[in-house]
């Protein structure tokens, strides 16, 4: 009977009590049908289905069915052709739209920038772990932005990065020309991603610190005694010891970058300049609301869903592999 069997990847120590309960329960459930009267076996056979029914119904009714409706809707037209079947027209429009291409390119850029977004909290957590002077202060300071809403962060950085704002004043003071942070199409996306990383790395930092707590300090001490330099300690002791933590942070940071930058984009650039900071989410919102083309937005949503599905499956594979290593 599958119910009650502990998943294989769960560590025995953590699953101890649950495992015992399952073992204790197993004989009872096996014995039941054998000695009961004729009415019981059917009830017991049906019980699992009844028990999982709410979850299945919720998923089917509130997830899968709307998803199917959305996909179906993406094959209908907008405006004059509202409700008519237009085949693949929306998808043709979508892939012919330079704005959508830009949005997908930017998604690719985010994936490329992922190592940076993971390395920053990792490195800072390492410094805190190695007790650099003032590490207690840094620990709380680094986490502070994580509690601010993207709208507030966006507004703050709008002021800081304004053409006549403090960031450019600082550059001017050291003799560098002003940079149009949010107005130059080659710079704006990096400015927004930079702010996003600044705003969210606190959470990853905490996860890293938790990972460090499980690290065996005797290994580091041993490496030091053997005369290993700091970079070598990081490379050969800390990183391997934190492999699972790093994988977890990679997955969560990736999800964060792909799904929660809308607020920042909306406040900081509005997709501009020249459409250089569009992301699929923003594109969907824009087409649905501002251009009143909900069917096209549905098509874009479907494409985004497929992309996220692929990314999600890849992430599951990574997590599963790391689970097996353990």
């Amino acid at each position: 009977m599958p119910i009650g069997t502990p998943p294989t990847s769960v560590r025995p120590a953590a699953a101890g009590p649950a495992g015992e309960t399952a073992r204790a329960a197993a004989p009872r459930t096996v014995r039941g049908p054998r000695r009961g009267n004729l009415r019981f076996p059917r009830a017991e056979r049906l019980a699992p289905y009844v028990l999982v029914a709410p979850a299945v119904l919720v998923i089917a009714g509130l997830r899968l069915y709307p998803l199917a409706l959305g996909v179906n809707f993406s094959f209908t037209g907008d405006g004059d052709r509202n409700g008519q079947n237009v085949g693949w027209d929306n998808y043709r429009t979508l892939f012919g739209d330079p704005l959508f291409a830009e949005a997908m390119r930017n998604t690719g850029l985010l994936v490329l920038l992922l190592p940076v977004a993971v390395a920053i909290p990792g490195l800072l957590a390492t410094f805190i772990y190695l007790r650099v002077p003032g590490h207690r202060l840094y620990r709380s300071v680094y986490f502070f932005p994580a509690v601010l809403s993207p709208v507030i962060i966006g507004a703050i950085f709008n002021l800081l990065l304004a053409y006549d704002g403090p960031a450019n004043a600082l550059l001017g003071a050291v003799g560098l020309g002003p940079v149009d942070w949010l107005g130059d199409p080659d710079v704006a996306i990096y400015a927004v991603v930079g702010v996003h990383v600044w705003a969210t790395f606190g959470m990853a930092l905490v996860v890293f610190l938790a990972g460090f707590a499980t690290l065996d300090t005797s290994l580091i001490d041993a490496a030091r005694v053997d005369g290993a330099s700091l970079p070598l300690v990081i490379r050969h002791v800390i990183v391997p010891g934190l492999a699972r933590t790093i994988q977890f942070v990679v997955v969560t940071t990736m999800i964060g970058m792909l799904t929660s930058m809308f607020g920042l984009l909306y406040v900081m650039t509005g997709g501009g300049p020249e459409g250089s900071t569009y992301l699929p989410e923003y594109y969907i919102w824009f087409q649905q609301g501002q251009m009143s083309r909900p069917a096209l937005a549905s098509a874009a949503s479907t494409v985004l869903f497929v992309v996220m599905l692929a990314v999600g499956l890849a992430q599951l594979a990574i997590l599963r592999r790391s689970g097996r290593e353990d």
Partner: protein
Amino acid sequence: MKRRALWSTALIAPLALYGCGSAAAPDSGSEGGDGTLVVWDWKSGDATAASYIEAAKADFAERHPDVEVEFVAQPFDQYYNLLGTAIQSGEGPDVMLFNGGGQLRDRADALLPLDDLLAEDMDRLAGWEAFTADGQVYAAPVTLQGHPLYYNKALYEEAGLDPEAPAATWEEFLADCAAITEATGADCFAMGNKEGYGIQFFLSGIGPGVLSPEEYDAWIAGDRDWTSPGVRRVFELWVEAEQAGLNNDGVNSTAMFNDEFALFDAGEAAHVVGLMSDVGHWKEFGEFIGAENVGVMPAPVAAAGAAPALPYDGGIGYGVAEWTADPELAADLVRSLTSTAALEAFYADAGAIAADTTIDASGAGPAAAAIVAQIPTGKPALHVALSAETLELMGRLSQELLSGSTTVDEALGELAASDQAS
């Protein structure tokens, strides 16, 4: 176990049924003709619009005392998203507020034609064109929205120029700007194109000084030649103004609302193409630089044959949803919302140029008086005639023009294609 399931079913079923019943009740009420009318807008929550809503409600209650009117103020950022969802589902408010132009035309198929129902108001109100699609009126104008070229008289005086005689031609305008920048350090134009709105205001504010009246009228009527010398000249001026340093720095990262207007408010720019109603207008500018210092000038003539007129359209207006139960009742509410008493209150409290031509505006300062005086000869604004898609594309291309990543010819080619497609 089975008995317990039966019990809980017996308990839950009436609750569920009760839920359905209570959800259905208000609907059945409004179908009867009298009951509740629901209005969606983004204004009724503002303190400055309170007296307007009161006056409109009172006017409507006089004629239909048994009908309740419910105003639902939506956040403007999300307004058209929410409205789009309502339209998609075919149910929502009975009466709704719209911006004139593309936002209304894109959604005209969800609205009721009002030509017959509002026939009596046609002469009293101005600005119908912005609420007309395919020859039929879909909403009644509440305010007029336009794009006058404002200037700061104090800066003119400081530069030794006559504030009452602004430049009539583009050459004189450039000379004045040079003198002002020299004497005061202020930029010629306050310009914000972060959202791509700067080009829209520039096209409508400066365009009348470039296009001939015939070409202007043809443009409004939908016969637009994007490769004509006049249209090309407008976009060339857009680029030249930036290259000649007439604009403030960082145009593509300056938000029009409200960083651009803040520059004009602070006296850091001498000119701005602003609005007539709501924000970025004579009343707001007057609060900062003094009502007596706010000037309104016609667009400087930059091409022979141009005869500049004030560009304005219906600003916001109320339309009736196609799915409403009683169209006449809803249209009556629209009439109350555009009654003279209500619009007078709106004009006085919100600082909007109301659509009612019978309201006296002489008490609101020289700029408002100058605008109202030009309304009879005014024409619809150039950018309002364009579809939302073309406007969006124009915003993006205008940013590329400023950064030099496209040319005027390429941009006009793309705009012509987009304009034809929509």
